């Protein structure tokens, strides 16, 4: 687009220059101009003889021809977005030139609402984009993960290391008090909103995918992140949490291009908790070969003297595989003035580190555009994907690893007859292999665009989008095989078949009117209509108790349960968007949108919300020192309304899923009551920013302040069951997010052969729950089990921040009884028995929403070599380490090696005097004759949540890539236009105070908000990839 504009401009100049060219007829130089970036030819490049006004422009094939006065003539090649080059003609007749893209100047245009490419200069709000290279370099199969650490104010969290597992994205904090709300942004592909929901498994967690994982990252041209309400006001209710605008690759005019990308990756566990290897199976220090207790027995070395094969098996390292990922994709694209096309096929197969975990993705994409005539053009695309795999029960795997004896080889899990080999406990690998859960998703995302420009000031555009998927899931837990003495995974076995169908339709029609009043005033007005519909249907049939073992069909079960859930949501929106541009330095943008939602009561279902934003490019208006290249102030104010989920109003009755029983279907009043007078939510946000660039774009700096208040929140307020309901969905409460975002970029070094660029971002978020509802003290977002009263709960409380984790703690001397927060700096009170005294009073032990997040990206190029690395971090975040709670209960932490030691616990007695009493840490009767029962870790340590709510900050080397582009000289002798080899490493933990698996993994999955609970999630992985890219 940019190039096209320039082309017209330069062609025009060309005509004006024609006269002077005729005067000098010495000699002719010709050549082709290409881009160093992709080797493609550059049309429209301006070529001028230095010191004269003589020049020309390159044609559509990048060729030029120019008469020059003599060998001393110097040609200046310039093109917007590329660094200008000068070249002396000398005696050459052919001067071929490759231009390099200019650093810091690439993001002049950004794709905003409805796929409109807008000059970034004119925006009155903050928006950030990342390009294809930055996406594919990350080698993340899941597109959402590719944003990790790259965009200010955007937090992306991997919910775990399972193949295809969901990743969660939150922009500028959590905006809803509803524990079940989706706080993630809207994803828009080529102007069409698409589904990014995560539908987790019922029962044990399986780590399913967020639906954006269906998209092949190799097909993406760029992603821009619209953060605030001002940016998303036009998208309406569905973008209240921001929007990620994805533009896919398109065919370009010129030759047909074929690109191949291939990579092979291996992955392994990136972190283990610190574990003990001294004590074996049994309890109370006694060795018991068939004990349930894996690690409270006698020292392994001691037992070994009588039981020779009793030894530490290193199961925690041996249980996990090396994961393998193979990704291949081929694309073909091309076009001419009239039409372009792009097609691609991709296939990814992945095997995870937990044995038998897999995920595959096959994608096919076809898109094209046709310019029928000067006034009418149309385009369309269709994207098919098939994804799915075997989702191992990772939570149960990790739990069973916990129970598994450290002196029994976990890999020796199966007998010859196919039954489980075990000393008593269930083998985790046997369970992972046979308790399967397979999903198979077929998805089609398509769109059609029509544009009609009857005159130069008027255009009509229409876009129809469709996003359909079917998700077929089969869960199998085998019952007994009928072999004597077997240990079956289930006494009955079960088969659950789930069928999910979802279809999104989006229709968007808009008229654009442009008017230039005079050379100072430019306006453009857009009026449009937007219609959205989502149909969703989920059917589940579950059979239990197989008649014939290992024959998995519902007809082969004695008990069958079925259930169905469906929904239909429709939205109609009308919008207007006025842009005013004064002298190209002052930009005003007004928008208004009225939405009508099917989900709200009829009297309240239509609502209007406006936005205004202003951009002032002071560098165009004021005289500034020459080293200031660019400077802009921006301000915006916006409101966005929000509807609710479909079918929640009023009181209804439900038939519990256990029915029918004896042919009877029971009914019960649904415990949720939706306020019949529900109103839309309203989020008001304010944003100020400053964007600057210095020294010819060699350095740039951007700062943004934002504050958003989400009021009249539609939340399910928990109410007394005695009312006849348990939950009342009504307008209640307000939540405020505010913060700063900093972006710092630059190109410290740029020479012909070597360049170095840096991009850093940093953001801080403050969150406060301004109000809930009178009479309601708290809203529970979720809770996670901990042994003996150490269960923790994430609760929302007025005046506090989102994400506070409550739990039990040690009593502190001098603690203020009114303080909701645990003050860890106060001395611990030690009881008469010599152990710290626990209190079950629920105090805030930490907060799970990171205060600071950020990332730094460095790119180096030297001739054909490229080196880049991205480091990201988060800090000011605590999480509940459920794994550590279990480890301490089972005597597996490294620190439980001190079990034969005495200790004087640091703290004070109730009277304030220091504790001096020595206690034994082991189980049973200690050397001091005191009976310590189950011992310190089981009786005291594991019962207290504060031991497990700990700092979950990290610094990660998110990506390191070393690449080499074969030089054009070498390529000349091959059929290839470009070739690149690279090696990349991902997700390496550089630092974390967390003692456990990767602190990034969490239980809830991308759709959940209880992020503070790491659970027994799928452990994080680090990976290495070898990549090959070829272009024809």
């Amino acid at each position, binding site marked *: 687009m940019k190039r096209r504009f320039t082309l017209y401009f330069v062609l025009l100049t060309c005509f004006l220059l024609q006269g002077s060219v005729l005067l000098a007829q010495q000699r002719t130089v010709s050549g082709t101009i290409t881009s160093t970036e992709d080797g493609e030819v550059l049309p429209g490049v301006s070529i001028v003889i230095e010191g004269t006004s003589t020049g020309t422009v390159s044609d559509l094939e990048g060729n030029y021809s120019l008469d020059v006065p003599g060998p001393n003539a110097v040609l200046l090649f310039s093109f917007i977005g590329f660094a200008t080059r000068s070249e002396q003609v000398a005696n050459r007749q052919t001067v071929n030139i490759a231009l390099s893209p200019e650093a810091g100047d690439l993001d002049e245009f950004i794709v905003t609402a409805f796929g409109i490419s807008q000059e970034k200069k004119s925006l009155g709000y903050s928006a950030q984009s990342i390009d294809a290279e930055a996406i594919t370099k990350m080698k993340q199969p899941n597109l959402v993960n590719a944003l990790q650490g790259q965009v200010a104010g955007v937090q992306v969290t991997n919910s775990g290391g399972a193949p295809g597992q969901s990743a969660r994205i939150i922009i500028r904090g959590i905006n809803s008090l509803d524990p079940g709300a989706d706080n993630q942004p809207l994803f828009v592909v080529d102007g069409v909103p698409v589904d990014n929901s995560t539908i987790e498994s019922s029962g044990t967690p399986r780590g399913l995918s967020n639906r954006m994982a269906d998209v092949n990252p190799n097909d993406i041209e760029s992603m821009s992140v619209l953060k605030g309400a001002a940016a998303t006001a036009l998208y309406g209710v569905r973008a209240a949490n921001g929007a990620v605008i994805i533009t896919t690759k398109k065919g370009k005019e010129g030759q047909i291009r074929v690109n191949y990308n291939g990579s092979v990756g291996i992955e392994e566990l990136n972190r283990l908790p610190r574990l003990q290897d001294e004590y074996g199976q049994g*309890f109370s220090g*006694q060795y018991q070969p*068939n*004990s*349930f207790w894996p690690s409270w027995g006698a020292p392994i070395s001691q037992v070994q003297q009588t039981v020779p094969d009793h030894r530490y098996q290193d199961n925690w390292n041996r249980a996990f595989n090396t994961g393998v990922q193979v990704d291949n994709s081929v694309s073909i694209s091309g076009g001419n003035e009239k039409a372009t096309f792009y097609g691609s096929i991709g296939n990814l197969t992945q095997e995870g580190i937990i044995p038998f975990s897999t995920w595959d993705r096959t994608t096919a994409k076809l898109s094209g555009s046709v310019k029928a005539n000067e006034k009418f053009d149309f385009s369309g695309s269709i994207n098919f994907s098939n994804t799915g795999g075997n989702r191992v029960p990772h939570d149960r795997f990790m739990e069973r690893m916990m129970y598994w004896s450290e002196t029994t080889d976990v890999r020796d899990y199966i007998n010859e007859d196919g039954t489980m080999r075990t000393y*008593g406990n269930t083998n985790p690998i046997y369970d992972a292999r046979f308790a399967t859960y397979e999903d198979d998703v077929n998805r089609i995302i398509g769109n059609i665009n029509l544009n009609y420009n*009857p005159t130069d000031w008027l255009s009509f555009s229409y876009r129809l989008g469709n996003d359909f998927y079917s998700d077929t899931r089969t869960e199998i837990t085998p019952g007994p095989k009928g072999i004597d003495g077997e240990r079956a995974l289930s*006494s009955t076995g079960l088969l659950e078949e789930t069928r999910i169908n979802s279809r999104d339709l989006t229709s968007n029609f808009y*008229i654009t009117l442009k008017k230039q009043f005079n050379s100072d005033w430019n306006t453009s007005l857009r009026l449009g*209509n937007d219609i959205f519909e989502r149909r969703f249907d989920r059917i589940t049939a579950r059979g239990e108790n197989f008649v014939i073992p290992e024959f998995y069909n519902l007809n082969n079960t*004695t008990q069958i*349960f079925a259930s*169905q*859930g469906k*929904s*239909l949501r*429709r939205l*109609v929106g009308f919008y207007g968007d006025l842009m005013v541009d004064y002298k190209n330095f002052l930009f005003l943008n007004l928008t208004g949108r009225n939405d*009508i939602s*099917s*989900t709200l009561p*009829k009297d309240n*279902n239509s609502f209007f919300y406006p936005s205004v934003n202003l951009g002032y490019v002071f560098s165009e208006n004021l005289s500034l020192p020459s080293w200031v290249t660019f400077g802009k102030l921006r301000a915006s104010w916006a409101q966005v309304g929000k509807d609710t989920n*479909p*079918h929640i*109003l*009023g*009181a*209804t*009755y*439900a*038939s*519990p899923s*256990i*029915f029918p*029983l*004896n042919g*009877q*279907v*029971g*009914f*019960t*009043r*649904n*415990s949720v009551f939706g306020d019949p007078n529900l109103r839309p939510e309203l989020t008001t946000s304010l944003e100020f920013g400053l964007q600057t660039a210095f020294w010819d774009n060699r350095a740039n700096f951007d700062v943004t302040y934002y504050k958003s208040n989400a009021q009249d929140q539609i939340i399910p307020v*928990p*109410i*007394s*069951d*005695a*009312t*006849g*309901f*348990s939950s009342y969905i009504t307008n209640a409460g307000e939540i405020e997010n505010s913060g700063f975002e900093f972006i710092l970029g630059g190109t410290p070094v740029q020479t012909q052969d070597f360049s170095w660029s840096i991009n850093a971002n940093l953001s801080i978020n403050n969150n406060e729950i301004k109000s809930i509802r009178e*009479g309601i*003290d*708290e809203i529970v977002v979720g809770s996670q089990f901990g042994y003996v*009263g150490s269960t923790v709960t994430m609760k929302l409380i007025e005046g506090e921040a989102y994400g506070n984790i409550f739990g039990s703690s040690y009593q502190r001397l001098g603690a203020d009884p009114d303080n909701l927060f645990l003050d860890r700096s106060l001395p611990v009170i030690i009881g008469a028995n010599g152990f710290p005294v626990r209190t079950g009073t629920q105090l805030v032990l930490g907060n799970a929403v990171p205060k600071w997040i950020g990332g730094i990206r460095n790119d180096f190029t030297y001739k054909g070599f490229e080196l880049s690395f991205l480091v990201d971090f988060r800090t000011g975040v605590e999480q509940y380490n459920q794994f550590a709670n279990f480890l301490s209960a089972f005597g597996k932490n490294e620190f439980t090696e001190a079990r034969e030691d005495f200790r004087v616990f640091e703290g004070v007695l109730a009277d304030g005097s220091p504790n001096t009493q020595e206690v034994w840490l082991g189980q049973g009767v200690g050397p001091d004759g005191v009976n310590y*029962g*189950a011992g310190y870790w089981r009786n005291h340590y594991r019962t207290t949540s504060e031991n497990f709510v700990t700092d979950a900050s990290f610094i990660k080397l998110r990506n390191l890539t070393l690449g080499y582009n074969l030089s054009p000289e070498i390529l000349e002798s091959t059929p290839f236009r470009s070739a690149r080899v690279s090696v990349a490493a991902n997700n390496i933990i550089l630092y974390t105070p967390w003692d456990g698996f990767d602190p990034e993994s969490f239980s809830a999955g991308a759709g959940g908000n209880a992020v503070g609970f790491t659970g027994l999630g799928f452990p994080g992985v680090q990976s290495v990839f070898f990549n090959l890219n070829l272009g024809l």
Partner: protein
Amino acid sequence: MKSIHIRLLGLLLLVGLSSCEEFLDVNENPNNPEDAPITGLMTNATYETALNVQRVGSTTSNYVQYLASPNPASASDVMDPLNFSGTWFNLYNVMTDLTDLISKAEESDAGHYLGAGQVLMALNLGMTVDIFGDVPYSEGFDFSSVTPTYDDDEQLYAEIMRLLDSGIQNLAGSTTISMGADDFIFQGDVEKWGKFANVLKARFMLHTKGTGSYNESELLAALDNGFSGNEDDAFVTFFEQRFNPWAQVAINNANLLLGGWISTQFIEALDGTSYPTVDPRLGLMIGTTDEGEFVGVLNGEGRGDAPEQGARSTLVPGQFYTSELSPLLIATYAEQKFIEAEAALSTDPGRAYAAYLAGIEAHMDMLEVPQAEKDAYLSDPSVAVGAQALTLDTILKEKWVALFLHPETWNDARRFDYGYKDMTVPANLNADLNGQFIRRLAYPDNEVSRNGQNVPNVTLLDRIWWDQ
């Protein structure tokens, strides 16, 4: 040209707006109906009521030492304050449905549904009051208040009696709709419903024995209209699709999800340790160790070094209480007879003694104890004590056995000051109880967080109104 465009646009907008309303009118819930049939409410209410009896029973069984936790100092054994949000929800959920059922029955003059609904309401409300004391009721169920106030427990007992009396009357009257297979308890047998209501009346009246409002003759009169034998028992039989919950406990335990371990107190009361006779019911109610012995767990102590399986007595699948399709007992003829024995004890020892023996026999018949063993037990001097020597201790010991796993035993235990022979407070008892037995359940966390201003401030030693 321009004006044509604008006119066209206007027309489109008009057409669009008018069809818009219809297009958006799609919010009716496709999954859950706005109304439910009275039969469906009856099905769920009878089914859930039986489950509520089991839910409360699974808590109280550790307090009355039928069961003991395999884990040391388990909160359920040592009488710690536990969070009963789930039980509370289930009780109120059924009472909510019964409120709807009752109002629907009134609207359609379905007198039998009305009567049965009132009886079930009385039962669920009674169970709730018996474990929690003051609870919300008068401001409940209709969403008139988001934070309903708590009613006095003694006044709620009056409401229970009113519900039962009214229920008995309505069940005896006419109806426009007859109950049938939707009634999981009596399959529409109105006569049995009437008897059941009378047994419940006697049960709740017996609770008040220590109070001024106790009326013995009224209680005995209710019993005269009670069950005629085991065939009248109120229970819900379980299903192939849904196993009896105690069976599920036994199956889970067999699969190492530990639960249903038997208290030493219970075993020693039946195996000849605490009493001279060996009770033939023992082996029909619980399982043995791998060695075929009955070995219990001391409440609060846990299993010690015992392995997860085979070394202690537990509920085992396939017995009377623990078969997949076993009935969940709500009220039995055996219980009725023990109520009668206790009520008549002071005024008519002969009637009391006959009822006591009939109670034992009814329970033994239920368990299908062989005739010879039954006769031997019933004639053992420690059992056949004679009318004059019959004591409350003897009656309540046998009632304790006959109401195995039933929550009514905790009401007896509290009235009886946990006076069962050899019963002591569990090991590792909750220190706040000062060496005493628990007297009520703590109000659930959900209620404290959602309706905190109305929740009475009580300790686990504060007694409910009839337990003074």
